[in-house]
């Protein structure tokens, strides 16, 4: 059972790994921004006055949260062309991730919105703020602050989920790993290294999110 580890066998493929990593990072960045934005809009609709909008969002959220991500991805990439919507693998993958994160973040952000004391909304109303101003300036910031750890964890989960995009040949990190091991058969080495890269990505994202948290919400720095 003596296996001779050959990590040096990966060196010729370093560029593939770097390219894959860049793609994963870029897709994650786009997904995080657009997915959280979508989640915020949907959470606003969910908490808002229109029961029609709220129901539409409800159906969207349940649909996404109760089906496998890979099926959502295949539906967008392989299914939608039947309706005439033909997307590149990259576009379909990113879209699927945005839609997925959007659904999960809707529920997370909604929980934060609902935790806003009614009195603060009344105070804003009495001060003459419009409904929109109240939502954006009074309700949303503390809501995001409250659910920030859950929201950022979800972003990291979605980043890890991007590995599935290799299945529609988006050339991200896992795709690069699959490609390399098909050439040099060093499965252990390749996936060991790639797992480590994902781990570092997760840790890095968490650090970054923590930094942003304190930057965006200076009241967290104030002592109680």
């Amino acid at each position: 059972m003596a296996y001779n580890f050959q990590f040096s066998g990966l060196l010729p493929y370093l560029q593939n790994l770097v390219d894959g990593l860049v793609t994963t990072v870029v897709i994650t960045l786009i997904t995080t921004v657009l997915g959280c934005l979508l989640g915020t809009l949907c959470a606003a609709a969910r908490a808002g006055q229109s029961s029609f909008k709220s129901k539409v969002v409800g159906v969207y959220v349940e649909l996404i949260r109760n089906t496998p991500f890979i099926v959502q991805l295949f539906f967008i990439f392989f299914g939608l062309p039947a309706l005439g919507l033909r997307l590149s693998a990259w576009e379909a993958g990113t879209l699927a991730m945005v839609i997925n994160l959007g659904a999960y973040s809707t529920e997370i952000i909604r929980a934060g919105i609902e935790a806003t004391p009614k009195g603060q909304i009344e105070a804003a109303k009495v001060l003459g703020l419009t409904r929109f101003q109240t939502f954006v300036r009074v309700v949303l910031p503390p809501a995001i602050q409250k659910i920030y750890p859950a929201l950022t964890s979800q972003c990291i989960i979605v980043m890890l989920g991007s590995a599935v995009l290799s299945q529609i040949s988006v050339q991200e990190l896992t795709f690069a790993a699959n490609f390399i091991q098909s050439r040099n058969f060093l499965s252990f080495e390749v996936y060991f290294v790639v797992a480590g890269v994902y781990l570092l990505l997760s840790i890095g994202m968490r650090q970054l999110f923590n930094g942003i948290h304190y930057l965006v919400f200076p009241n967290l720095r104030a002592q109680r």
Partner: protein
Amino acid sequence: MSLVNIDNVHKYYGDNHVLKGVDLKIKAGEVISIIGRSGSGKSTLLRCINGLESYDKGGITVDQMEVTSDEEQIRKLSKSVGMVFQSFNLFPHLTVSQNITLAPKLVRKVSAEEADTLALQVLEKVGLKDKASSYPQELSGGQQQRVAIARSLAMQPKVLLCDEITSALDPELVGDVLNVLEELAAEGMTLVLVTHEMNFARDVGDRVIFMHQGKIWESGDAKEVFAAPKTPELQKFIDAVL
């Protein structure tokens, strides 16, 4: 014409007839204390004055504007009517100064510099100029309530409604808040206070309104009402709280 005109206002919560024909006229500069048992309709009356609650019958005008629950109308009213709540309701993610300048900037379209100057002015008034850059969580309850008052004042209202604004405070912090109210009264601000501070109502208030079962049961000059209550209900209430 009175600043606030309440004319035969009725309000129901479902079957619960909460306000049963309330008439009240408030002149500019008056300090009115509303007292009465819990559930007698004091908060509801106050909240009808600025449109936070709708009413079912009768009419209310403030500063010659009709009070309706129409959102646009409530926004217009916000420039004339301020309100301070029992639970402060400061915005936790904003500094004291930002809490105060938010509405002037968004609603009255005051420039940022003007708003900052305004914030310092009103903070000076409530004795908290040095707390401008603190966050609510760093302040005591009494300080938070004074900031809430300052925040209302920054909108330069003609009348300030206060709903039991000292009830959530530790006893030793009540005085500071009452002092601010007293100064405002002395400056001629129109105040409508729902309060359990009977001494304050008697000594600072011009007029006392005793509410009972959704009606103004008895009202009159502050000192006289307390010295010689006319109805047994008020007598009983005063005996119970004093």
